């Protein structure tokens, strides 16, 4: 039986083999990602629940563990309402356009030493390009649904995402200077040598700028004026229901996980263990579990921030993005460049 399968495999033309192999790897990345998205929503409700001295979902399955599954099944069987005045093709295209870049960015993430789907040179640039495309889904959704709330939400969201993308880009320039490469694997290799060799220390202001911009970029609280339940009801996806809404939701959480993963890759050593000298002790050496742990920590930070801070006003958001983050990052890029060339401190390369 196995012989038969092997001979069948070899009989297939080469391009089908390559295609099948790649699709298999993509499924291996995508399925756990989708599952984590489902359980991040559960974690969010549970953690924020405990922070507010509530219990959170606890009815479906033991301790509410099946809650996300129940949500998914419910959304799947709900009607997608397409408003009559909307532009129906664009209305349905918008969620797909949000989803595709949110997933495609995962193609270049290194999960452990050498475990990476596509080891491209311009990995980081590719991720930024993909993130910058996420804004289309929002604008098109807002315009296509032809509702005032959706339109306002889309506008606010677009202007905000755009402002923070610049701060994010400048922060990443700092990482590139320290890492000397656009390749994510190389950037992590540069951080070898334990906790104090990771980039968070020499790039401390940029870590803060990057992470906060990440929170703003994904339209999460306290920067969630694009959704603003209490003023514009849900922003750009007010007219979406059923699976079309679920796709937006999935993309938003996939982006959150992405930002958390990137923070841990770029500033906190990715799969590197914080204890460089104990590499021989099992579980304390480098490995995928460290990457997972760090990413989980930053996802937790997202939820923690949401539970802690009240929503910013729109002018405050724009002020923070343009007038605080951009000057801070420009100054730090300069400090870092001069230090690196003069070979001073931890910036010497």
């Amino acid at each position: 039986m196995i012989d038969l399968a092997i001979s069948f495999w070899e009989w297939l033309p080469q391009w089908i083999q390559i295609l099948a192999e790649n699709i298999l790897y993509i499924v291996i990345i995508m399925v756990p990602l989708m599952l984590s998205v489902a359980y991040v929503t559960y974690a969010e409700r549970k953690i924020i629940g405990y922070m507010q001295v509530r219990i959170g979902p606890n009815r479906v399955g033991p301790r509410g563990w099946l809650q996300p599954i129940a949500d998914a099944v419910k959304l799947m069987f709900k009607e997608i309402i397409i408003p009559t005045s909307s532009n129906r093709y664009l209305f349905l295209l918008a969620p797909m356009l949000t989803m595709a870049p949110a997933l495609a960015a995962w193609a270049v993430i290194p999960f452990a030493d050498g475990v990476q789907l596509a080891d491209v040179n311009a990995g980081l640039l590719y991720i930024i390009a993909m993130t910058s495309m996420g804004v289309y889904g929002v604008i098109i959704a807002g315009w296509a649904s032809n509702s005032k709330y959706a339109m306002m939400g889309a506008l606010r969201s677009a202007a905000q995402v755009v402002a923070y993308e610049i701060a994010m880009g400048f922060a990443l320039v700092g990482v590139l200077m320290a890492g000397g490469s656009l390749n994510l694997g190389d950037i992590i290799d540069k951080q070898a040598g334990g906790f104090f060799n990771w980039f968070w220390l020499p790039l401390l202001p940029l870590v803060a700028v990057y992470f906060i911009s990440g929170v703003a970029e994904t339209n999460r609280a306290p920067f969630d004026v694009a959704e603003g339940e209490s003023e514009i009801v849900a922003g750009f996806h007010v007219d979406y229901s059923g699976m079309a809404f679920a796709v937006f939701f999935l993309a938003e959480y996939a982006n959150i996980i992405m930002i958390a993963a990137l923070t841990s890759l770029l500033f906190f050593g990715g799969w590197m263990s914080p204890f460089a000298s104990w590499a021989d002790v099992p579980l304390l050496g480098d490995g995928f579990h460290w990457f997972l742990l760090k990413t989980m920590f930053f996802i937790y930070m997202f939820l923690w921030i949401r539970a802690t801070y009240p929503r910013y006003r729109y002018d405050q958001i724009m002020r923070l993005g343009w007038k605080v983050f951009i000057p801070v990052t420009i100054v730090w890029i300069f400090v870092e460049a001069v230090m690196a060339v003069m070979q001073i401190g931890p910036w010497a390369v």
Partner: protein
Amino acid sequence: MLENYLPVLIFMCMGLIVGLVMIVLGGFILAPRKPDAEKNSPYECGFEAFEDARLKFDIRYYLVAILFIIFDLEIAFLFPWAIVLDDIGLFGIVAMGIFLGILVIGFIYEWKKGALEWE
């Protein structure tokens, strides 16, 4: 080099396909479709929609978009500079210093003009 980008291309296609499948499956196969005029009207707190939602809006949003393009270009110029800084050394810093200096003048100008103010 191209062989590295093949999985990326396949991944993008897969992303689109997953989105499409989910919407088609959820919206048109599993879910009911019972449209009626009230349900399909755009949401406006239960009122009839007053006017077309595609209204003109504050010109400030255009300004933000234009400034964003300019700064995005700046970032595109900074990226190759950041990764070859070791090779080009002090000369590179001076070159980028002038470049960023000129643009910081523009940034100060927009700040002083109040282009970054929102009320």
